């Protein structure tokens, strides 16, 4: 099907039969009046068939009279006739309008936001920030100015060094560049400070470069300056150094939790049911009949899968699956000792994950207090010695202030 065929279909055309003795004259007059005839076929001595546009057909009457030709319509083709046939069917018209409206909506509004490049900032947070500056699912693409969104996002998020906003069709592609992490200073010539990564009491200082600010037995809080990269000396004035070294401090990790002495345990029966529902453009369609939970006691686990239409360009179809696992609750009791042991085990395991692997564990302290007669609060404290020094780039503004202070004094 060629372009001209499609255009012909949209405009509509008629297949006519012309009968008469002066058909050549008829054709010539048509030609001279600018009436386009197509697929002219001879059908015997006094008869031809041809295709003609609707407007052309209307102008034909006069010519037919002049050349004594009898023109009859053989068949009608095209959209105008189709529409005429269905003019009384209101739902068809409504459907067409709806189709156009949906097409217009889907192609002029943001249907999906792709965020790439963020490692520390959660995607949801960026999405929230974007929504606040007017870029969200359903926003009109014409009203979004990538430049202004970019500026607002960069001022709104301290951690974003650069943000790129590309709107392609109905999808927004966001590229985020985060500020360099303090741990990732690689060049040895970048001026930097050493700051505390955790709260603690300084025990040992092994500073190889930079001006030490803290002393042994000092209490420091997370984020406190330990070693300054701005080295002040009477001879040379201020020099910026790439501070490095180790600052060992006593740190403490603790956690507590209340354990009831009477508790219920889930005994799984092995019975499982899954239910699938479909979400189309925000409307949920349940593909199951029973709306109540299948069991009296059960665990619910939901998983969602997104299916984009047109290669993921319209992310509006979700298939969500809910799994139900049946269990029988059983009341159990435990002694104080059992509860404390369990608490100690659980809390210690959790704390071990927080403690960096190079930290030296010095002491583990477990305390418990009975709260009422039915519960016990278990607390675990782990004392360690570890290197708490972390490099952080000297901020330009901070460093300017520092200069100002020194000039004034």
């Amino acid at each position: 099907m060629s372009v001209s065929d499609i255009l012909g279909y949209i405009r509509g055309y008629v297949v006519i039969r012309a009968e008469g003795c002066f058909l050549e004259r008829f054709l010539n007059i048509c030609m001279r009046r600018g009436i386009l005839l197509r697929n002219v076929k001879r059908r015997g001595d006094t008869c031809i068939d041809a295709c003609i546009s609707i407007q052309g057909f209307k102008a034909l009457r006069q010519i037919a009279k002049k050349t004594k030709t009898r023109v009859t319509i053989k068949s009608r083709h095209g959209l105008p006739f189709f529409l005429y046939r269905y003019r009384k069917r209101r739902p068809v018209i409504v459907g067409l309008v709806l189709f156009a409206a949906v097409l217009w909506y889907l192609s002029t509004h943001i249907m999906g936001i792709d965020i790439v490049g963020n490692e520390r900032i959660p995607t949801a947070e960026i999405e929230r920030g974007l929504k606040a500056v007017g870029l969200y699912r359903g926003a009109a693409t014409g009203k979004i100015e990538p430049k202004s969104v970019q500026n607002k996002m960069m001022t709104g998020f301290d951690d974003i060094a650069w943000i790129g906003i590309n709107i392609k069709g109905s999808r927004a592609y966001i590229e985020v560049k985060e500020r360099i992490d303090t741990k990732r200073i690689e060049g040895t010539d970048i001026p930097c400070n050493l700051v505390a990564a955790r709260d603690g009491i300084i025990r040992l200082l092994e500073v190889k470069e930079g001006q030490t600010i803290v002393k042994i037995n000092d209490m420091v809080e997370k984020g406190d300056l330990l070693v300054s990269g701005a080295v002040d000396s009477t001879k040379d004035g201020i020099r910026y150094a790439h501070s490095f070294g180790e600052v060992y401090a006593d740190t403490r990790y603790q956690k507590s939790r209340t354990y009831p002495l009477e508790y219920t345990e889930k005994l799984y029966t092995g019975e499982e049911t899954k239910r699938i529902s479909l979400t189309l453009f925000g409307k949920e369609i349940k593909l199951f009949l029973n709306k109540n939970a299948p069991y009296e006691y059960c665990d619910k686990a939901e998983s969602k899968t997104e299916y984009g239409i047109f290669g993921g360009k319209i992310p509006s179809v979700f298939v969500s699956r809910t799994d139900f696992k049946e269990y029988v609750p059983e009341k159990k009791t435990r002694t104080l000792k059992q509860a404390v042991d369990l608490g100690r085990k659980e809390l210690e395991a959790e704390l071990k994950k927080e403690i960096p692997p190079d930290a030296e564990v010095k002491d583990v302290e477990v305390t418990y207090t009975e709260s009422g007669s039915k519960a016990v609060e278990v607390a675990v404290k782990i004392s360690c010695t570890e290197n708490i020094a972390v490099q952080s780039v000297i901020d330009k503004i901070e460093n300017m202030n520092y200069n100002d202070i020194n000039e004034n004094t």
Partner: protein
Amino acid sequence: MKNRKKQPQKDIQKPTIRERVADSLDASKEVILDFARLEFIGNREVTVENYKSIVEYTEKQIIVETNPHRIKIQGAELEIKSIAREILYITGKISSVEFKLEV
């Protein structure tokens, strides 16, 4: 005068002033001479540009009036695919084309 010497004189007719102008300007002749322009694709299709009118149209023979010739196209299953003011588009199995000067 130089041009005239170089040009081989195939036609019996003397080239007209218009033709000489067209030659020297390197312009397309059909525009300046107001001739018809025929374009064949094998023997299947022919487009006739700048024609005057159709004199005869049957399946075996189409006669088209142009300036200054009358062109007779003969063949089988001839069909006018499209007919517009300037362009005539004929398909079919063309066997011969004949140019006749008008009397």
